[in-house]
């Protein structure tokens, strides 16, 4: 719908021809916006880290490796955004689908099972597996009101690691599955270390793709139905939206994105253990979505990236800094340890003060200014002014 909004922003929408052209234009523009935005990111990030202060923390390769892992979280956040942000369902067991994706690839390409399936198709398979489980879980519970879903997913998120832990016969239990084959193009096997570019670029490609697809969903009748459910489920039903199927689709699509991320993680770490998918992953991703601005795709992506960087780089550097300068109290505080305290405070503050998130979507600000946002949105700068 935002496509329409963007297009009709200027005209009062009396001339269909014009509107049609405008929408086609903006639609094509949407995908291009994403691609251009991601391309800029892809080139900008490696350059930025060459400048101080970043360059002083660690070398470019390490930064890129970090970005790749951050990318996994961006993917997760994008997926969870479909469920939480667009459809307003609270999924607290999101890591479970992440795990399912990862183990799917672990089964598909590791000495543990002896299979050697190629990486690229497995991306799809992993996504499908996750979606299947999403349906299995969602179907019985989505008929009920939303907050039941929250608790059921929370339970599910607990069960999956437990199940993996305790069915050693099939998952090697706590040992996890090692020796997973990294992706390869032709004969070129992605290097485990040394050259982070292959993984880095693959991750960017995945993110770009998912963003484009998610945008298209958001602009479709399905996306409208999601938002309608988020706004008022009963009214949505009373307007012909089949709430159960619609919610289930959101759930499954969100799950599939997590599955995608899982497959990538498995191939990156070459080892998966249940410990990687504990509930704190789910909550971290939830925090990313909420802080990034629920429902705003660019916002969530940027939010996820920044938060991950904060937790994995900034807090560490903070510790080191205070250790060095020996500030009386601060040097004793271990900031890494209180990461979740920060999340907690952020979540509460965010809900009370700025529910639209750090990077509010245009929709939420539209009442303030329409015209220039329409134009601005089309430019879609990666700082989260969502191109609507």
């Amino acid at each position: 719908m935002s496509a329409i909004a963007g297009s009709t922003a200027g005209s009062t929408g009396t001339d269909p021809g014009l509107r049609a052209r405008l929408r086609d234009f903006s639609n094509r523009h949407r995908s291009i916006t994403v691609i251009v935005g991601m391309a800029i990111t892809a080139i900008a990030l490696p350059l930025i880290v060459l400048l101080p202060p970043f360059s002083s923390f660690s070398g470019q390769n390490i930064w890129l490796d970090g970005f790749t892992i951050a990318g996994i979280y961006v993917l997760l956040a994008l997926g969870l955004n479909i469920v939480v942000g667009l459809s307003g369902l609270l999924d607290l067991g999101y890591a479970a689908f992440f795990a399912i994706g990862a183990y799917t690839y672990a089964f598909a390409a590791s000495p543990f099972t002896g299979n050697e399936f190629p990486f690229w198709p497995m991306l799809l398979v992993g996504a499908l597996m996750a979606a299947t489980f999403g349906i299995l879980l969602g179907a019985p519970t989505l008929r009920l009101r939303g907050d039941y879903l929250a608790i059921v997913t929370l339970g599910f998120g607990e069960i999956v690691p437990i199940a993996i832990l305790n069915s050693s016969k099939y998952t090697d239990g706590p040992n996890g599955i090692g020796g997973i084959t990294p992706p390869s193009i032709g004969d070129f096997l992605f290097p485990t270390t040394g050259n982070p570019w292959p993984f880095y670029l693959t991750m960017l490609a995945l993110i770009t793709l998912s963003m484009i697809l998610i945008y298209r969903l958001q602009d479709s009748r399905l996306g409208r139905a999601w938002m309608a459910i988020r706004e008022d489920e009963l009214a949505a039903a009373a307007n012909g939206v089949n709430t159960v199927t619609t919610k289930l689709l959101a759930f499954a699509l969100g799950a599939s994105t997590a599955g995608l991320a899982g497959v990538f993680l498995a191939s990156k770490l070459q080892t998966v253990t249940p410990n990687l998918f504990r509930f704190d992953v789910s909550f971290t991703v939830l925090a990313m979505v909420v802080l990034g601005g629920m429902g705003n795709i660019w916002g969530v992506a940027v939010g996820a990236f920044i938060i991950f960087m904060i937790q994995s780089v900034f807090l560490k550097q903070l510790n080191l800094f205070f250790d060095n300068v020996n500030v009386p109290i601060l040097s004793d505080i271990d900031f890494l340890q209180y990461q979740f305290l920060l999340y907690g405070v952020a979540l509460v503050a965010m809900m009370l003060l700025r529910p639209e998130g750090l990077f509010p979507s245009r929709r939420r600000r539209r009442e303030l200014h329409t015209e220039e946002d329409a134009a601005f949105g089309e430019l879609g700068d990666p700082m989260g002014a969502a191109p609507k």
Partner: protein
Amino acid sequence: MTQTADSGGRPTGGAAAEPSTLLEARGLTRRFGGLVACRDVDLRIPSGGIVSIIGPNGAGKTTFFNVVAGIIDPSGGTVEFRGRTLISRPRRTWLEPVFWVLPAAIVLLVEYLLGTFSGDEESISLGAIAVIAVLAATLLTAIIRPRWYSRFIDRFGVLRSARPNDVVAAGIGRTFQNIRLFQNMTALENVLVGMHLKLRSNLGDHLISSRRQRADEEAATRRASELLALVGLQGIENELAKNLPYGDQRRLELARALANDPVLLLLDEPTAGMNPNETAEMTALIGRLRSDLGVSVLLIEHDMRVVMGISDRILVLDHGEQIAEGSPDEVRRDQRVIEAYLGTGAS
């Protein structure tokens, strides 16, 4: 657009010509725990007619509405719409989940008997996958609810009343007493949501943003603006619903209800909280809907001028009981109605 309109299959124009029954409620009853919200309500709406339900507060008008709209299940009675039963008391609904797990259970049993689980890893994992797949398939079918599935569970006496979206699909649109717009969506988007069932593009179309999808959206947007114009809301397409003045919100909700080209409109106090002018406009609009679009209307209203003005027939409820039914004049003269109103203080 036009052909989609016709596919709505409503009797265009000549509705009055053949006053066939459009909707008929028989002995509709709903209790909450112990208290009976409405009991044995009978109602007949001829196609193209405007029928009103009046009654003091808490008379069960809205409950009746929600039952007809499929939002709450009736405790008894049925509603027939265009000759086919739409709403009825659900029976043995607990049985349905059983059917969801049954196939998977059977597969599991078979595998067990075949000794899959005493076999090697391969067979076990395959067996597990099979079970999960079957379960997933069953659940999907249950959610998509193809005809044969419904017929199948019907055979076991599982009877599930229509869901709100089924009711809409059947051709009934509604508005709410306390306006329920999608506050953070624009007026246009609100109407587009109302058009949900008219759009045919599917998930695949969305993902590849196919030509069909675009054409769909285009047509929908055009139609939506037409509807907004119809209710007199030109040029506010991109206003957020929550920023519209009260009267406009009511109209927007009406436009949204019309978006699916309904044959019957359920309007819950459409003029509540409006000033005389707005009321007059709304009344006129409702009249127009019947004359121009041939839409029949079921109306809950407190404003007697409106009710007496446009209704063909009036149904009077009090404490869930149906105390009178007839033409405006009959009702006006009915003794019990007067008592009911004087008794509880007319609103």
